[in-house]
């Protein structure tokens, strides 16, 4: 990407309608590009070969159970830690450089605030560190904490502090906001208010990446869900598509001598666990699969089990490590994104 920094203000009049139309092809840096990203802590692999491309303007939920590698990935994305191998690029440059230029900001899980400062002081302090800063009043308003301007941070509730963190992240008018489990510990009202503020902001065209382990949050607020488990990507698609996949049924059958490769070729199969002669298929269309099993194979004892949405999500994110069964769609393969 562009190596030298051209000192052009962001608001410089662009030629013709170029500002309104997405510049084509190579001249547009992707917001985030992770290539074969790996991170190990000693012998523990937290992130195991993640590939991910996020385009400007996307609202992406980074969904996975606790310990799936979400925070490790976000730390690398923000330059807080170094990948063990692989690469991270943010707007075509290193995370640190993107942060220095005010392109990326983040709302971290906890901490990050000085209790003895007021809300307004915290924002003025943070804002003073950037070259391009938004008006503090406006940021307070957008985060919904105008009335707290003069309040000491230590006296704010958890939800209010979280909205302050969000306000801080807005200060540099970043092109990408990263939120790490932003609503952990918030009550229902706090959570709803927080997401209202984020959504209002996202409508302005910012790229948003948020980590969460709440399926419901990902469903409601993201237009793309990246599902990870054990440091690997297990599904990537719209929330509707993920839901269809996650809410699929399980078909169990006794079918001796079946290999993973055979199972993968069966219709509507998204995954299979083989345990001796008993095979448990994860499927998007249990009728089609059952019909196939009963008419085209030697399968016996066919059972169909329906999952609730939550159960299905748990199933999808807590299967035995890939290798024992067929992993759900592989990143990058044409079927990676279920039609939706």
């Amino acid at each position, binding site marked *: 990407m562009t190596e030298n920094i051209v000192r052009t203000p962001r608001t410089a009049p662009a030629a013709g309608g170029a500002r309104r139309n997405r510049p084509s092809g190579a001249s547009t840096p992707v917001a985030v590009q992770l290539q074969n990203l790996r991170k190990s802590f000693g012998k523990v692999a937290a992130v195991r070969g993640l590939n991910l491309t996020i385009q400007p303007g996307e609202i992406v939920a980074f969904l996975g159970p606790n310990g799936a590698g979400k925070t490790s990935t976000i730390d690398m994305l923000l330059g807080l830690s170094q990948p063990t191998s692989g690469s991270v690029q943010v707007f075509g440059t290193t995370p640190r450089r993107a942060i220095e230029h005010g*392109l990326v900001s983040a709302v971290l899980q906890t901490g990050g605030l000085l209790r003895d400062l007021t809300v307004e002081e915290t924002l003025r302090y943070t804002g003073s560190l950037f070259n391009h800063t938004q008006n503090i009043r406006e940021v307070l308003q957008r985060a919904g904490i105008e009335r707290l301007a003069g309040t000491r941070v230590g006296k704010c509730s958890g939800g209010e502090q979280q909205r302050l963190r969000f306000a801080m992240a807005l200060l540099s008018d970043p092109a990408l906001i990263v939120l790490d489990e932003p609503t952990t510990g918030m009550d229902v009202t706090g959570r709803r208010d927080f997401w209202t503020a984020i959504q209002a902001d996202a409508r302005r065209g910012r790229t948003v990446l948020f980590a969460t382990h709440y399926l419901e949050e990902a469903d409601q607020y993201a237009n793309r869900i990246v599902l990870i488990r054990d440091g690997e990507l297990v599904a990537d698609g719209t929330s509707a598509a993920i839901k269809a996949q996650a809410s699929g049924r399980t078909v169990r059958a006794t079918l001796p001598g079946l290999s993973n490769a055979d199972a993968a070729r069966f219709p509507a199969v998204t995954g299979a666990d083989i345990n001796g002669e008993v095979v448990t298929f994860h499927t998007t269309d249990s009728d089609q699969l059952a019909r196939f099993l009963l008419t085209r194979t030697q399968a016996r004892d066919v059972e169909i089990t329906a999952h609730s949405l939550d159960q299905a999500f748990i199933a999808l994110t807590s299967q035995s490590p890939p290798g024992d069964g067929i992993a759900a769609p592989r990143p990058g393969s044409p079927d990676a994104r279920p039609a939706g």
Partner: protein
Amino acid sequence: MAHTTIDGGAATVPAAAPPGISSRNAPRLGGFNATMLAIELRRLLRNRRSMIFAVLMPVVFYFVFRSQSFDAGGGNTAAFVAISLGVYAAMVSTASVSSGVSVERSQGWSRQLRITPLSGTAYIVSKILVAMVMGLVSMGLVYAIAAATGAQMSASAWVESFLLGWLGSMLMAAFGLMVGFLLPAENAMQVMGMALTLLAFAGGVFIPQTVFSTGFDLFARLTPMYGVTGLAHAPVLGWDHLGIWLLNIGAWAVIFVGAAVLLFRRDTKRV
């Protein structure tokens, strides 16, 4: 690259052009600026604990020690005590302010700052500057009260001892940073309180170096407040031990700054 997520085409295209690295500049001086310094100073004024510890205590000590009498060289006893307690005030101030980095670490503020353009160097420089301002205020207060209540020395001695003591107190700012990066917040504050008092005794702040026994003096020379205290008294008492003082200050500066830098690197290491 047809993403299922960007449906609706032009309708969802952001109003602002997708920015690139070329559209923004990084701040100069690693983000260091006057606004952050002003807010840091305001934080100090609010910190009741450090105001009592670093500003009021030395003044109280001044009145306690002032009445003693001993050979005070070219000034009166009160002037001698004023220099001692002024230097003490400056050193306690700089050390306790800079050790405040431990609080910022424990509250996650330093981590938060790492996702801003602020550079590590700019952060450290701002801490030292704020510590020095605090030292200036607390030492200035001791000197002002001393001058108003009968301490006497030549005008040049007032100025020189003040500047030497104040600038020398930067050594203790490095000490504070070292402790602040080494220990968690609660421990850092306790250790500072204890360490500063002991070092002040050993360094000849509370008991004049001139009355140290030979044996104790040999030990005292190895402690970090010895050099700065001796140097601050030199405009009145003479420069006889300049070499020892400078050696003391130089050696401790290498130790404190070196340790602070190593610990800071450990703290912000991008593992």
